[in-house]
């Protein structure tokens, strides 16, 4: 069975069970709620992993008081944050200040709609799934910039401007690195991409994976690119003036984004829900958490880059490499009928090594001092 046939057989509209009570719309409402529940649960797990994992890596304990091994710590935190006073600065733009967390939250929730949990199990199997992700994921920036602008605080504004600059730049290598996988898979539907991964694309597109991981980290402001909330420089960045539940929403967005990017990496490069023995959804969640753990690891290990270095990395390093990767992949797809083969794996890994070596020889991070 070729790839397009598989997709046709798994079109989402047919995936609705015919005996589902109330028909099609109930299906959507029900699974939307399930999806939001999934997202919140994953965020709680992610925060737990991050805090405990970072604790271990930093030779301290991490939260361990609430519940066994501190598993209830996040619940306690949520309750605490709900009870907190909501403080709005006097000079803030009240409407924008109020609206910002919501604007930031909605796109992240939308991201989860196109990610397959197992074969065909996704809320909307759009045939432009990847395009949807690229389009929607950067919308969060709008909320962040509204927060920075609306709180009338210079730290917030600096953080928000940094974020806009970073997201606009990193969107390009991010999208370009995906195109390689699209070429190989021959489809934009995420379910189709998973089905095409007889060899996980991390092997077939190693350079694409690295670029996507780095650009993804920058896009969602995970360390070492966490400039917009660089606590040692601009206090808390865009959410300096937020408290209570509004702050919690930003916190939620941050981790939901990290989980979403991890899930997208899992789907695009790690074979999504595919795997032996265990049920597919468990494979999916497991892989997502492993990718998230990688992010935690880099966060504890690396210092932060500077804003001009961040830009230089995107435009001088990632963008050319992504273009070359795309070019090579295109040739491979043209040359072979089935580009998913082990020769391509070997070629691509060698190409990745050579390219990174050459580029890092001539690449200079940032430009340093400016005469004033």
């Amino acid at each position, binding site marked *: 069975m070729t790839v397009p046939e598989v997709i046709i057989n798994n079109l989402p509209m047919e995936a609705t069970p015919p005996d589902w009570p109330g028909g099609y719309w109930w299906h959507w409402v029900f699974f939307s709620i399930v999806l939001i529940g999934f997202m919140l649960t994953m965020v709680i797990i992610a925060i737990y992993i991050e805090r405990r994992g*970072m604790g271990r*890596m*930093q*030779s*301290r304990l991490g939260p361990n008081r609430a519940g066994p091994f501190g598993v209830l710590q996040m619940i306690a935190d949520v309750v605490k944050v709900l009870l907190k006073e909501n403080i709005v600065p006097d000079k803030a733009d009240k409407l924008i200040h109020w609206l910002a967390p919501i604007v930031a939250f909605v796109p992240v929730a939308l991201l989860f709609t196109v990610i397959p949990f197992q074969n065909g199990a996704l809320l909307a199997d759009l045939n432009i799934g990847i395009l949807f992700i690229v389009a929607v994921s950067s919308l969060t920036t709008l909320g962040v910039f509204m927060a920075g602008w609306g709180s009338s605080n*210079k*730290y917030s504004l*600096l953080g928000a401007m*940094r974020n806009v600059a970073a997201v606009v730049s990193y969107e390009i290598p991010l999208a370009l690195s995906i195109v390689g996988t699209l070429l190989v898979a021959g489809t934009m539907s995420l379910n189709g991409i998973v089905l095409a991964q007889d060899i996980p694309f991390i092997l077939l597109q190693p350079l694409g994976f690295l670029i996507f991981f780095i650009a993804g980290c920058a896009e969602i402001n995970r*360390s*070492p690119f*966490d*400039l917009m909330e*660089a*606590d*040692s*420089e*601009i*206090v808390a960045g865009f959410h300096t003036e937020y408290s209570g539940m509004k702050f919690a929403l930003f916190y939620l967005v941050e981790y939901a984004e990290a989980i979403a990017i991890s899930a997208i990496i899992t789907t695009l490069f790690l074979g999504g829900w595919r795997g032996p023995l265990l049920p597919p959804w468990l494979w999916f969640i497991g892989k997502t958490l492993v990718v998230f753990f990688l992010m935690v690891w880099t*966060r*504890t*290990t*690396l*210092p*932060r*880059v*500077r*804003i*001009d*270095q961040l830009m230089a990395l995107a435009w001088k390093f990632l963008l050319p490499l992504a273009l070359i990767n795309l070019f090579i992949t295109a040739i491979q797809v043209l040359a072979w009928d089935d580009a998913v083969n082990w020769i391509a794996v070997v070629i691509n890994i060698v190409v990745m090594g050579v390219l990174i070596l050459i580029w890092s020889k001539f690449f200079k*991070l*940032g430009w*340093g*001092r*400016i*005469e*004033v």
Partner: protein
Amino acid sequence: MTTSEMMTLKTEPFVLNFGPVHPSTHGVYRMRATLDGEVVIDLEPVVGYLHRGIEKLAEERTYGGFIPLTDRLDYISPMSNNLAYCLAVEKLTGIKIPERGEYLRVIMAELQRLANHCVAVGSFLNDAGAYFTPFMYTFREREKIVDLFDMVCGQRLTYNYMRIGGVSQDIPEEFLPALIKVIERLTIFIEEYETLLKENEILLARSKGVGILTREMAIDCGISGPVARASGVNRDLRKADSYSIYDRFEFDVPTCETGDCYDRYRVRIEEMRQSLRILSQAVKDIPGGPVKAEVPHLIRPPVGEAYGHLEAPKGELGFYVVSDNSIAPYRCHIRPTSLINLSALRDMVKGWKVADLIIIFGSIDITMGEVDR
């Protein structure tokens, strides 16, 4: 609005206050930075939020009674402060210190240097954005040193261990074995730390060539300690004006050439190695005997003045004491290392970005208790 008007849109610099309450000002320092976007175009330091009038308080206390207050100056390295003050008063009175006392002083001062540099390196990297990991690691090692201090004087932050004429009490017998263990542990730890950070790409990109302090400016501003040595000023009071018994030990004075943030970090790491060398020599040679000279409870130095200084972890720390033959100093002036090292900050950060401002400031390594006194 036409395109040409858009192109010439006027932007104007704005003032941003860093501190007095800010995660990276190491206390209550305040920097009024004028920013053009991200670029720092001017900086006005504001000090004095932690002023407690310690110099004036010295005039109200006996010579010995002022020692606990010196702990509160540079609270990251109180042992050195104690010692600097005692050196000044001993110079004034001409007290001779017993051998064992001298050795203990050197051991404590060098341990203090290690502890201080642990904090300095950790917080420098924390300012660079390495989310608390190096900070925690270095604090783990500092903890061992603080445990040693706890063993000899019962305190973990304000030691009050030095006395005029020696040290307050002899070390317990389990101290030296514990010290040897700490020396071994720290040797391994420094290597570990070096493998993690010495060639870290991001750290190099962030700190190499950033915040250069030229040799001339370092000398002009009176900057001392690791900051000056990173700029190529080969001056270490332990060699240049040898006090206590430092002339008996073999150690090098590490210097660097460029004077950027990375060099300051390198110098500190090297100094930690040298301190370990001194310590292992001191542990070998330490003699028995009394630890404190016979000094009357209330000292009445002859009329006169004396300036005692030493190489504190942060640089030259000096106490200038004037006596009028009473039981309290007539005047006590402190040469604060941190304040004088900060004096070149404005020239160092001009033209760099906000993120650089923070790590340049962090690489100077100051303690607000000493800046404001």
